[in-house]
């Protein structure tokens, strides 16, 4: 031990101390405290009590109300992921093929929204969706529908807005994968006489797949725990786990239950992400050896 | 081989490396290296890629910590001295010029560190840029300079601090062929002007032979042979050295009864030569055509301007020979000839004895 200490270079330790201390103190401890809080009981009259048990979790698992909200959260997150794949993956390939200066310009168009507040972006959808919203005007004007569709306070609306908010992550992920690959492979395929469709199916798609997988993990995790978008589009009527946690904390004041809900969401998201990641690694290890 | 002064007395070398060892995991990259470098000497570390040249230089420079051995500079142990306190000048393969400083600022940096006064700094920087022939370029930024110019700035920056030893890691490998030759001449001129003790790392044998007082041939972390370029060229200790330095023909012969035999050819050997199988090395330029000797058939002929290269098949394997492009036309492909060389141009290699 002494020998180890003597050989230990103090410089990197000192350099990492400020960040290490701050994160240790203000990230790990609060998270641990939240885990403890989720084991405590709450009553409206006496507040948080110092009994520790799994009652909150039992309540979440046994009450169908919570089950329904968790299911809805999973459903919207999954549908959002599918939508970002359908839009983001082809667009990433298209962007990749663009030449200067178009590529730079449209890259800003595709990724720039990341820098705009989620609230503003979602507000845009609320304006488009509204009963006198532009989408319905256009659809009716085109004669596609007869009566206005309901987007506000529906899962459809939440999914569309969430997909818009999270789309840049899918594009980044797919483009990062494409960037690592040899740009000549596609030309090689054409030069071997393959058709456009064959080239897409046999050459492009397998290359894009790892990026789609990675992007899906990110998008799913963020969609499942998204708060602002479901809060604005879904409102009180269409709760997801995150908005439910918010209500428990700020209206019911049942912090222990809120903490249990938040942690459960966190754990589920982590499990899904890790599971998908393992699956992806097993599937793609050969490609990246 | 320790440098000797005019009277033949041994004087202590400026750099003395002994038992220098570096391991990465289980592989020993530099293995008990021992080397003395005299004041003002120009020594090249030469060897194939991955043989540990850079690692050796980095240990001398203080950027890689050795796992064993010692590096002494003028009798002082450097092994645990920080790189910034060693006072060595280093030119890196990538030049490592500070991109945000002009050429003059780059050169001035080492002086600034040494708290040299502003006016003196300007003077020394100018002198250093003059030395490398870049006087008018002081205000240029590195990215606005050619590879050769950047190379000179790096050299000036390393020399301006008047280092005890100059370390060069493949300084010319990023330059194109003609520029490289020009810079070789420059480098030799500058080294002789300043008299700075220099250690050069290279895998280019012509560069090493053109520049150095002595060549250190390395192979997988160990020294294969040390000596003056012409000595190592003419008297390689091992097949590896014979093959690495220039082209050579190797024959399997044997020695017995004070004779050295190759097929039915034979030569007298000095008495001391022990009996047994032996490798005979003959350089292509030492081989001549004759009426009698080793029978051979020309298998290919390459014209190189000043000379012809002939590939020949003989009973003792393929042979390469050079023929100056003077007078008679060389034999054509398929022609049968006889090869000969003088006894003195044959060099015997006994692998076991050498290692």
């Amino acid at each position, binding site marked *: 031990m002494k020998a180890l200490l003597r050989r230990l270079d103090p410089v990197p330790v000192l*350099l990492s101390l400020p960040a290490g201390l701050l994160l240790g103190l203000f990230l790990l401890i609060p*998270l641990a405290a939240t885990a403890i809080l989720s084991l405590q009981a709450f009553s409206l009259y006496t507040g948080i009590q110092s009994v520790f048990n799994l009652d909150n979790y039992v309540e979440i698992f046994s009450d169908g109300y919570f089950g329904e909200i968790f299911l809805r959260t999973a459903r919207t997150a999954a549908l959002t992921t599918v939508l970002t794949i359908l839009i983001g993956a082809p667009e990433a390939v298209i962007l990749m093929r663009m030449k200067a200066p178009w590529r730079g310009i449209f890259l800003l168009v595709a990724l720039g929204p990341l820098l705009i507040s989620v609230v503003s972006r979602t507000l845009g959808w609320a304006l488009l969706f509204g009963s006198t919203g532009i989408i319905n005007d256009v659809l009716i004007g085109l004669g596609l529908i007869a009566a206005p569709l309901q987007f506000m306070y529906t899962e459809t609306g939440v999914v569309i807005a969430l997909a*818009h908010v999270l789309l840049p992550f899918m594009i980044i992920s797919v483009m990062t994968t494409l960037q690592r690959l040899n740009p000549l492979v*596609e030309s090689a395929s054409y030069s071997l006489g393959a058709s456009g469709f064959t080239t897409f199916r046999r050459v492009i798609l397998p290359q894009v797949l790892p990026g789609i997988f990675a992007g899906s993990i990110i998008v799913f995790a963020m969609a499942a725990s998204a708060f602002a978008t479901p809060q*604005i589009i879904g409102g009180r009527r269409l709760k997801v786990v995150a908005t439910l946690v918010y209500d428990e904390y700020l209206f019911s004041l049942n912090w222990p239950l809120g903490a249990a809900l938040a942690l459960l*969401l*966190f754990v589920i998201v982590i499990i899904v992400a890790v599971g998908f990641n393992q699956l992806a690694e097993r599937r793609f290890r050969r490609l990246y050896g | 081989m320790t440098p000797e002064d005019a009277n033949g007395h041994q004087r202590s070398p400026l750099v003395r490396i002994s038992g220098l060892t570096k391991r990465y995991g289980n592989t020993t990259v530099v293995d008990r290296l021992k080397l003395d470098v005299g004041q003002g000497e120009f020594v090249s570390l030469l060897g194939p890629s991955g043989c540990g040249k850079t690692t050796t230089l980095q240990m001398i420079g203080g950027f890689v910590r050795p796992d064993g051995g010692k590096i002494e500079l003028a009798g002082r142990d450097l092994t645990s001295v920080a790189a910034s306190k060693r006072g060595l000048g280093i030119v890196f393969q990538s030049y490592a010029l*500070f991109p945000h400083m002009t050429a003059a600022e780059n050169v001035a940096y080492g002086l600034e560190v040494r708290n040299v006064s502003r006016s003196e700094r300007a003077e020394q920087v100018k002198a250093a840029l003059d030395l490398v022939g870049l006087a008018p370029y002081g205000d240029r930024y590195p990215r606005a300079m050619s590879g050769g110019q950047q190379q000179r700035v790096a050299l000036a920056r390393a020399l301006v*601090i008047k280092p005890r030893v100059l370390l060069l890691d493949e300084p010319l490998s990023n330059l194109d062929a003609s520029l490289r030759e020009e810079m070789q001449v420059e480098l030799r001129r500058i080294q002789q002007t300043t008299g700075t003790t220099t250690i050069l790392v290279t895998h280019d044998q012509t560069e090493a032979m053109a520049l150095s007082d002595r060549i250190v041939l390395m192979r997988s972390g160990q020294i294969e042979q040390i000596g003056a370029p012409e000595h190592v060229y003419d008297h390689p200790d091992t097949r590896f050295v014979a093959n690495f330095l220039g082209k050579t023909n190797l024959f399997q012969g044997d020695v017995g009864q004070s004779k050295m035999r190759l097929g039915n050819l034979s030569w007298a050997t000095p008495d001391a030569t022990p009996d047994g199988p032996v490798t005979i090395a003959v350089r292509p330029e030492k081989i001549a055509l004759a009426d009698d000797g080793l029978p051979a058939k020309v298998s290919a002929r390459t014209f190189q301007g000043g000379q012809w290269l002939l590939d020949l098949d003989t009973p003792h394997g393929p042979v390469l020979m050079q023929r100056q492009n003077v007078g008679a036309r060389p034999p054509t492909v398929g022609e049968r000839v006889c090869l000969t060389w003088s006894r003195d141009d044959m060099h015997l290699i006994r692998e076991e004895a050498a290692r």
Partner: protein
Amino acid sequence: MSSSNGFWSLAFHTLFVIFVMAPIVVVCFMAFTPEGYLSMPTNGVSLRWFEALLNNKEFVGSFRISLALGAASATVAALISIPAAMAIVRYDFPGRTAFLTLCMSPLMVPSIVLGVAFLRFFSQIGMSGTLVGLTISHVILIVPYVLRTIMNSLGSLDSALDHAAASLGSSAWRTFRRVTLPLTLPGILSGWVLAFITSFDEVTMTIFISGPGTTTLPVRLMLYIEDSIDPLVAAVSTVLIVMALVVMLILDRLFGLDRMLIGRSPSDPDR
């Protein structure tokens, strides 16, 4: 991808651009309506809602708080990330991977979880609703972004530069000050700007921990929208969108937005 886009690709691309831009453009247009309710400005444009915004003490106050919070947390995050990045990129030390994981872990924790965790923690140590507490929480949230940008920038420096400086007799500190810092400055600035805008826009975590005197702009906007949607919120959003645009141009100039988000692109190798 060397082949070019065909007709169907360009058609898809057009729809994509419409999809991405529509909500943003709609917000900006509606902010200029002369009417008292949300509508497209078909009967002329007006700045009345921006004027209303300027006269709204709550929104203006929140804007100030968000600016201060963004600047403070980005600065603190940069100050602690520079040495951390140096340690991770330049040194090998026991616990290096664990330290890197710790620094990046805020990316893994959903903001909503961070929000509830900080709410409980700050109320226990008596820091709830304070600007200091908000700053700490934002620093933790943005450290991964700053750290990654600075690490990229440090990692792309030739390590021979450090060796060259050392061989000239430069101390580690002087080398840092005269060589490393100037050369990583664009990376540090990009990290700062990215961190600033991330902090400025953060709403999910902040809504839990901001107090009455420390309501940030996005939180104020969120709370306002929960009540009613009128052209005032469109005006606020327009301001946020313009800010994002400015930040985007700065980042693109400093570092290349594509390089920052996607990594070096093979088609412009000297970027």
